[in-house]
């Protein structure tokens, strides 16, 4: 299952924190900063899987390899879009490559809802951000992976506010990265 979904920007400022287990606020912040340190140092060509941050790594080694799965979070997957990092922490029951697709769907859904989404949209509409996530993941279990249904689910709850008018509009964009290339067609 998925243990946490995090979004933060290139400077480590959180934009979305969702922990599917109850965790002290201060511990949450430590975890975020640990993961940020890990992710910020990675080169462009590196893969999208992180080694476990120190907070999570301490007890994971004790797990026995005899059982195929267990409850300990063992996988930290991330994707980087422009100014934002999207992070998913999960156990071994999730597929690493499929999680990458899931993040892609999440971002695409946000893009559909905000029309050319950017970090500012997410800052000013963080309720919508949470609502979108809630359409996809409930209690750490994925409930929807189809883009249209996610967008439809959020829209059914009311109109999605655009960012305030006096903020500048979004900038031009140059299509998706490798996400559209069909390599990750895991949905």
């Amino acid at each position, binding site marked *: 299952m998925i243990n946490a979904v995090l979004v933060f920007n290139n400077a480590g400022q959180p934009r979305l924190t969702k922990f599917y287990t109850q965790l002290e606020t201060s511990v*949450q912040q430590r975890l975020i900063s640990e993961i940020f340190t890990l992710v910020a140092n990675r080169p462009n060509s590196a893969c999208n899987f992180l080694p476990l941050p120190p907070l999570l790594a301490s007890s994971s080694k004790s797990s026995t390899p005899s*059982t195929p799965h267990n409850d300990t979070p063992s996988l930290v997957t991330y994707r980087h879009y422009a100014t934002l990092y999207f992070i998913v922490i999960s156990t071994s029951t999730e597929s690493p490559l499929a999680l990458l697709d899931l993040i892609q769907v999440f971002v695409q859904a946000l893009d559909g809802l905000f029309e050319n989404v950017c970090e500012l949209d997410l800052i000013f509409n963080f309720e919508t951000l949470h609502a979108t996530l809630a359409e996809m993941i409930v209690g750490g279990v994925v409930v929807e992976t189809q883009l249209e249904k996610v967008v439809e689910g959020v829209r059914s*709850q009311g109109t999605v506010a655009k960012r305030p008018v006096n903020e500048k509009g979004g900038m031009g964009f140059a299509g998706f990265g490798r996400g559209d290339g069909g390599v990750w067609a895991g949905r």
Partner: protein
Amino acid sequence: MFEKSLYDLIRGLRNHKGTEKEYIDESIKECRKEIRSTDMDLKSTALMKITYLEMFGHDMSWASFNVLEVMSSPKWRHKRTGYLAAVQSYRRDTDVLLLAENQLKKDISSPTPAVISLPLVAIPHVINPSMASSVLSDLLPRLTHSHAAIRKKTVVTLYRLALVYPETLRPAWPKIKERLQDDREDPSVTAAIVNVVCELGWRRPQDFLPLAPRLFDLLVEGGNNWMAIKLIKLFATLTPLEPRLIKKLLPPLTKIIRETSAMSLLYECINGIIQGGILEAVEGTTEGEEVARLCVGKLRGMMVIEGDANLKYVALLAFDKIVRSHPYLVSQQQDVILECIDDPDISIRMRALDLVVGMVNSGNLTAIVGRLMRQLRHAPIANSANNPANDRARATAVTPYAESDDSDAEESLRPHEQRSDQPPPLPEDYRINVIRRILEMCSHDTYSNITDFEWYIDVLVQLVRVSPSTKATAAEGGDSDQSDDVGCSIGRELQNVAIRVKSVRPEAVDAAQSLLFVDLRDQMFPSSGNGGQGVLEYAGWVVGEFASYLTKPEPVLSSLLHPTSLQLPSKTLTVYLQAFPKVFASLASDEQISWTPERKTLMSLLMARIIHFLEPLSTHPNIEVQERAVEYLELMRLASEAASGTDTGTEHGEFTDPPLLLTQAIPALFVGAELNPVAPGAQRKVPIPDDLDLDTPINPNLQYLLSQAELEGFEPDEDDVYAAYTEPPASFNEPQPPTAISASERLDAPHKEPVSYQNATEDEYLDPDIIARRKAERRERYKDDPFYIDPEGDRGSGAATPLGRIVRENNTELDIDSIPIMHLELEKRGPSPGGEEIARQRSPRRAPRRVEIMGDETLGPDEPPSHSSREDLVSPRFAPGQARGKKNLLQVDSSGLGTLSLDDDDSSGRKLTRFELEQKEQEDAEMKRALAEVERLRLEMQRASERLEVKHETLVKKKKKKKVRRAEVEAAPVPEPVAEGEAVPVKKKKKKVKLEGEDAAGEDGQAEGAVKKKKKKRRVVSMDEGAPVQEE
């Protein structure tokens, strides 16, 4: 008063660059006021703002009751805000959870789908067992709601309910199963159920076997790749229970592997085949061969063809699983896997490292270790002090700051990947990991993979130079933490080789000796930090124990006695204390040297230095160091007296006997039976002698003697007790001859030159001085060998010019005449293919030395390998704190599910489990209560201390806050208006407080303490009476 919207708050934050903290404090203060308002809009906005700030680490637990208020608003917009705040801020110890329960129940039963979704999403975050049983009855009907969106969320919510309250599944599972079996069910709902079943499946696979046909149909139908992945994962846990499934699964899985374009699905298929044991099951058949080849081929493709780091990573993950059952399949892919060891990406390197340890054999060991060593040597040692990781981790809260340029944040998220291209520095834990892996690979199975121990000793010495510095605390702690240090692990290896491999003992002692030299320290150890210092302890032991092998005993002794040695950790110092008498003994014991005045002066000087070194140590705080220091101090004083008392020979050429104490007595302390490695289990096998009586006290008057000793004080008496301890026991066990490796094993050992000799890659991972030494040794070794072409010896003498170089120089026209004639016995060796290879091929293969490795000594038959394996000596030993299996931070414990059977037919078993379950639940509940109590108290104290910190900022705020909080505490379960009422007079007091000024400061702390205590008491009470409150 001016009220800010969330938008204003964020704008404001962005405009207060540099003063964000003040701005946030101010805003939270405003929110505290606004949230008390009766205007629901205002209240809801304030809540939204503090929820936003909570994201940055600003505690909002104080608003838990207000969250509930907003949740219960009839307006959907408010409700949404309230529920979001609840999800983000409610913790296990939030006391309004009891009150929230009714609200949740009410909203689940709402007619509006949008409203139902809110509690469905929130419940997984706030659920506890007592709540679960009460909410369950409201949730169940939602499984048949007309909206698919509600149904799928309900399924997942029920799963989370089951995690804390396993009984949930009894009524819920039949209904969920019904949904799953329904062909006309919405695909989204089916997918959600499959997700849940997959999560439940690995805990109790046997319960889900009856579903296999339906799940199989879903897999074959295809369509949703996400669901297919989950189904495959589920089947991988089912196949071990039902082997017949394998035959059925194989065709669709191979079909997917061949046809799918989705890499994630392809990978999971392969993974499923591996994990489900399908590869093993079909092994030997042609079909199995084909599947195995297909999987490995595809995995190789993922690593090579795609050139995609992610695919490489997951392929390594899969190989890691295959290598356990099919090592030969993986070793075929050795080339691509070894490439990954040097991948710029740390994540991939770590995976490859794990994998490589399982693949290593005597043929590739040197090559693999060489690659790893090269990495260690070329990456700079990260300085832990200015490592940003350490600084950031300490920060508890991130303060939102105003971005200087808004355009950044407006950048569209669509463009992908914008990262720096700098290679990451090697993190320290990776470094440590690599060193440990090298040691693990080399020492595997009592060094069965090593053919050249001199090489191994060089590797060990090089490893010391690249070891990362240990944490300061571990070095100072000295005792238990030390064994964790990589330096110690390297040292243990050096010690082991010195003991076990007699043929390289001189080299091992040489290495230990060079490690000890104080003047070489800069060269032998990392230039910064205290990395590798742990090795000193073992090097000290080696030079002491094998002092006779030392080439430079005197410098070693002066290094041991160097003033800097006094600063070493006490553990190392104890070993040093034992080592230098041994070295001294080997220096002094020669009877053949006449006791000349020079000899006498030298000995006296040495002893004087030893005594000088020991004197300060006799008051060392560590008791072990102190004891040994005092013992040897006395011995040395005695020896020194004896030396000065023995007259020297007056004339040259006349032999005078040196003092016996130096030549006989002191050496006799240290020589005797040779030390041999003993198997860990051997001690247990020593038979207990029949006449051994452990029950009768040796001296029946012990009590009396003790009491007498106490009265009289300690009196050293030199009677037979002394002798009993000093004289060696008569029945000393003769050491067994070292267990040599059997002849057959020797035959099996590959007679092969280590790869690195040919490839000459050593230059890349060994430091120049070590290489120079190796070269010199090699030259020495082969100087009489006509076949050896010295790479450097050709200068000047044309006869030794290698053929290859001439070929290279005159590439186009080969002038045969200019080739100097070498006396190669061509008729014996036959014609060579020529070209560059010649030089290498001609170089004679060194006859593989048969290295004798001492095995562990033991008695009787061998222990099972798990006990006697040497790996546990090398593998990291965790500090006691770490070893305890502590629960992971983010872990959601699903172990409760393991005891619940979903099988309805087996009624007897079910009854039993139900009984057990109840019992377990009771225990769990008690345990939880106790834990919650402890945790709550801890939190209380933590919060109180946080509050105290806040209080120091302004007096006025402090005073006011405290009063309000007291009001809150007293009115905790009572609705808001009361608190409001009490808060009013506080405002009046405000002015007064201002006048009082600083006088109030002292009181304040005390008052706070009182409030804290009071609050604590109150909480405890409310928890004990949890049930009655709930009924209210």
